[in-house]
Structures are given as C-alpha cells and as structure tokens.
C-alpha cells in the first residue's frame, strides 16, 4: 500500500464550471485534501441591486445555463411572494411543465454526456457515437425532447423567455402539447436502455452516513413546490433557512461552503431518500430494477437517483400536459403586484434545494438579494466523502485513484458556475 500520494487534477473535465482537486497524502495520512473552486465569481447581488422587479428573473436565470428554469422559478416565486401576486392555475401548470423539462435536460446531460463516458472508459460522448451508437443516439434524442419541452413553454431551450412575474406570457398550442405528450410517452424505452447499462456497471461500494435535505410537498414528490425537510427529522419554512443553513467562506473556494449542525447533502439522492414514497409508479419500478433502496448513503448512487427522477419527471410532464389539454390553454394577462417587501422562493433545482430571497421597495426596485445554490451546499459533503474515500483507494495505481476521485466528484453533478454566482447579504 502506498504511503505517499500527490494528486492535482487541474480543471476537472465534464463538470459544469471550473474546479481543481488537490490531494496530498504523507505516510498514509491525508495532509491536504480540497476541491478548489476557481470559477470567477459573478456578484449577482451587485448586478441585481437597484433593478426593476420584472428584470430580476431575467438577470437571475443567467446565473446558470443548465438550471436557468430553476433560477427563474425561484426568482419568480420570490418576487411574487414579496409582491403578493397569485398566479393562475394554468400559469402554474405551464411553469411546472418547463420545470420537468429542465430536470430532464439536466439529468440527461449529466448521465449521457458526462457520466456515460466514465463508465465506457472514454473521454467524451464523441467516441461513444462509434463504440455505443445506440446508447449515444438515445442520449441525443432524449436530450432533444427535453430541450423541446423547455422551448415549447419557455420559447427557447436555454434561458426561458415566457416565464414572467404574474404568470406565463406565452401560451403553447394544443398541437404542440400533443406532440410533446406523444414523444414523452415513447421515451421510456430510451430510459430503460440507460437503466440496463447502469445496471451492468455496478457502482463503487462506498457509504458515508450523513444528513439529507430536500423539499417535501404535500400532494406530490417535492420538486417545484414544498418546504425543506431533513432526514434528521426536522422541517423548516423557507423564511427561516438562514437559521438552519449556515454559509461560510473557505479560502480555497470561490463558492462558499454550507453546513447545518454538520455536513448535509442535497440533490436527487437526498430527494429520493426523503420522498421515495411519492415517486411515480415507473420511477419506483426503475429504482427497484436498479436495486436502489432508501435510505442510501452511497453518493455514487446519485446517478441512478437522477435516472429514477427522469422516469418520474416524464410521467409527471405527461400528466401536466393532460391537465392543460383538458383546460384548453388560452392567453391570460399577467397578474399585477399588490404590495412590496421581502419574498422567498424555493425550488428543487436538478442539483438540490435552491433558495432566493429578495427585498423589493415600493418603487418596485430590488434593494437586496440573497441566493443559496445547491452545489455550494454540497461542497462540504464532497470533501467529507473524499476524505474517507481516498484512504480506501491507496492500494491502487495513481491514475486509477485520480479517475475514481473524479468520478466521485462528478457523481454529485456539481454545477460550479452556478455555485460561484453566490450572493449572501444579510438583511439588517
């Protein structure tokens, strides 16, 4: 077994954003271990300050290209809660449809473009087109469908246009919704193909018990709506998140870290652990096929959890479309603001719980903004994992250790560009 090991992975590839992994082991002891977040911070708080409330969602969605619908949704919820706006049933359904579309987009991008190459032992999806043509094509097709959902509702598959304070300013045609419905109903086969592939590639055995936080909704699996709950048996209101989740600065990361009393994890695995019973039937069946039981403490299983959520999102998207078709979608005017003040917006972004909080003054201008990003909440958990995972690997060749470590980080699907777009301003 190795006594000394020095690994520095500069700019981890196939993750969203810029990060390095630094590991230094001397005499079998970890001297240094860190996930350096070197992405340039963007200072959205300063960008938002003084802007009109109905520009906020447009600006905030540019925090991240992958989870723009999530940022838009959290932003709109915060604006609408601050300004006492209640959106219509139709608007809520359309926003949910875009949300399921983004969950699919993000999970499929991660599973097919970022994780699959790891499992197939290649560097990107490009060689997969030759070595695993069926699977690679399936990935491209599923991705296109997910893009299509976001485009039909939002007007564009990246950076939605029509999600606006007070409602949704574009109404999809029944014909388009029917087309999506048909494609969604036919997409389970593709998901099955990925499930079979993942089942053939058993994940690394590695378990570390920890706390999981996610939104819990009353009627359904918490994604678009719900209040935060912890696997440690407590729940809290979005308004009091700063009491439960503490952010702090670490020198090696442009993104802040976060903790509760200890380390916690957010994301697909956390959601599955907390809300498994509310998953759709096909999602539960997929989890069973993958032999995923909850609670699970293996972060590598986050990949399977994401795939399970793809089944769930597909079924839910179909049922939302059915409701919309039954109502017959029609253009509606947006609801106007009735008040001003502080507002909170929370959603389960693909990578975990996302909090937006704004203070809007009586002229409709944003005075303050705070935002806590899922990946920032996971950074501490990733480092904790690496700290117990690396010693288990010391018997292996260095290149293999580096690959395993990268795969672990990638399993969290970190969105580094998102995590550095931090804003944390305490309200006076």
């Amino acid at each position, binding site marked *: 077994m190795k006594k000394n090991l020095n690994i520095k992975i500069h700019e981890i590839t196939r*993750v969203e954003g810029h990060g390095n992994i630094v590991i230094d082991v001397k005499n079998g002891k970890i001297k240094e271990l860190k996930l350096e977040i070197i992405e340039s911070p963007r200072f959205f708080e*300063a960008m938002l300050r003084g802007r009109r409330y109905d520009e906020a969602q447009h600006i905030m969605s540019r925090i991240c290209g992958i989870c723009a619908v999530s940022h838009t949704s959290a932003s709109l919820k915060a604006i609408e809660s601050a300004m006492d706006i209640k959106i219509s049933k139709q608007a809520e359904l359309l926003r949910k449809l875009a949300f399921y579309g983004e969950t699919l987009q993000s999970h499929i991008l991660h599973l097919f473009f970022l994780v699959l190459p790891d499992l197939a032992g290649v560097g990107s999806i490009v060689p997969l087109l030759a070595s695993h043509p069926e699977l690679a094509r399936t990935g491209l097709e599923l991705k296109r469908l997910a893009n299509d959902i976001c485009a039909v509702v939002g*007007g564009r598959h990246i950076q939605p246009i029509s999600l606006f304070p007070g409602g949704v300013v574009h109404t999809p045609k029944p014909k388009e919704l029917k087309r999506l419905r048909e494609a969604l109903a036919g997409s389970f086969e593709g998901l099955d193909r990925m499930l079979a592939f993942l089942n053939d590639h058993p994940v690394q055995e590695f378990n570390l018990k920890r706390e999981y936080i996610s939104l819990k909704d009353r009627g359904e699996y918490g994604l678009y709506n719900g209040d935060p709950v912890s696997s440690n048996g407590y729940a809290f209101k979005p308004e009091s998140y700063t009491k439960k989740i503490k952010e702090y600065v670490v020198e090696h990361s442009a993104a802040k870290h976060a903790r509760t009393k200890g380390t916690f994890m957010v994301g697909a695995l956390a959601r599955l652990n907390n809300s498994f019973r509310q998953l759709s039937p096909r999602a539960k069946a997929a989890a069973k096929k993958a032999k995923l039981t909850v609670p699970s403490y293996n972060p590598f299983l986050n990949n399977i959890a994401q795939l399970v959520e793809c089944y769930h999102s597909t079924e839910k998207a179909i049922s939302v479309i059915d409701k919309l078709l039954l109502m017959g979608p029609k253009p509606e005017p947006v609801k106007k603001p009735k008040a001003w003040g502080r507002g909170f917006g929370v959603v389960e972004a693909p990578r975990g719980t996302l909090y937006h909080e704004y203070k809007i003054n009586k002229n409709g201008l944003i005075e303050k903004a705070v935002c806590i990003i899922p990946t920032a909440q996971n950074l501490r958990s990733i480092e904790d994992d690496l700290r117990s995972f690396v010693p288990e690997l010391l018997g292996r060749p260095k290149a293999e250790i580096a690959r395993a470590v990268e795969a672990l980080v990638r399993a969290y699907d970190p969105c580094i560009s998102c995590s550095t777009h931090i804003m944390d301003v305490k309200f006076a």
Partner: protein
Amino acid sequence: MEKKELPRLAFFSFTCCEGCQLVVLSCEDELPDILSLVKIVNFREAMDQKSDVYDIAFVEGSITKAEEVRKLKKIRKNARVVVALGACSSTGGLNCLKNRWPMEEVKKEVYGKDALRSELFATLPTRAIDEIIQVDYYLHGCPISKKEFLNLTTSLLLGKRPDTTNHPVCVDCKMAGNTCVFEKDMTCVGPITRAGCDAICVTYGAICWGCRGLVDNPNTDAHAETLKRHGLTADAVMRKFSLYGTCKTRKC
C-alpha cells in the same frame, strides 16, 4: 501517406453561465455531421482532452480576472480565428451590471470581512473580450442563436466570409407578425438592438431586452418608423439600454 488534417476547433469559457456552450451542445442533429468535418480539441464541459493546437477558438464569457486576461491573450496567440461566443464575451453582457458599483464594495457585499482572504475572490470590472484582444467574428445574444452558430461555423469551414447582421430587431419583429409592445404600454429596446434572433422574446410574449447589443450606429441605423410612431428618439431608447452591454455604451 498524409491524411488531410481536419480544422481544429476549441471552446473556452470565462465568466458566464455557460449557456452559450449549451446551445452548441444542443445541436443534436447537426453534431454528428459537424464532427465529421472538424476536430474538437477543447471543450472542458463535455470532454477530457485538452490541447493548445487549434485553428478556431470560440470564446464564451466576460473577462473579470487577471488570470483570464492572461489566458485570453494566449488563446489569441494560438488561434487563427477568434470568435466571441455570446453576449458576455461580445459586449460584456449582463455581467456589466456589476460595474455600476466600485469593485471593493461588490466584493465586500458577497464575501464580507473575508473579501481579502483569498486571491480566488478577486474581481476586475467586467470587460468584453475585444477590449483585450482583437476578435475576428461575433456571435451575439444571451444566449447565441443556434442558427447563427451553425451558419458561421459552416462559412468558416468553407472559407467564406460569414454574414453579419446590422438591422434593428424591429425589422425581425415585424416579419414575425408581432404586435409592438409599445402598444401594450410596455417598453422595448428593439429599435436600436442588432437583430438576427427573429425577435424571439417579443414573439414569446416578453420585450426585447437588448441582449444582442446595439446596431452599429444607433442614431442612423435605428428603426425610424417605430421610433416615430411612438414619439421616441434613438437617444431616449438608448438611455433605457442599461441591462446589456453597458460596458461598451457608457464609461463605467
């Protein structure tokens, strides 16, 4: 035997949301064809390979750090052609909004008393990439239009000069058959904004936010008809043009 070398494309990303890269990744239908004509040697988000040898560099994101200035200059040295990919890179985009405040204040607001603790927290006022290096072609928009990306890439591969757009969004908007939002009591910077996006935001119920930057000479190239009808001047609309590209239109 020597095989003809395929042109090498590289993608780089600075301060931004990486959404424009995602537009590139979303060319699902065209991707297999493009890949038969070029070799992609750098695309950190999607692949492991890294190389310093490339012909065409697509640069996404604004410049907000000293380290980024250094890397950008190196890209210019290595590449035959540099393309600015998206608003962040071509005009500074939304990132310019930060420049309304002193950088010390901006940093303090986020990192508090720890603002000076790490080099990683450092930040410069936002700049578009052509404030640092010479840029050959621009793909405007937040995000870019997929159609324009494919057109430009095809032109470059065929050795043709790509088309550039310099008419205002109102022209596209009329073609799309939209009702002007000024008639619905909303305001819009379409009359002075460079088109090429088919006025997609108005078509989908919102306004033009100006993400593609100004037409070359707003005072002469603006959409006169819309301005006249609503009693506006190019200058008045330009004053509203504060969401995007303020880096380049104003001293900040």
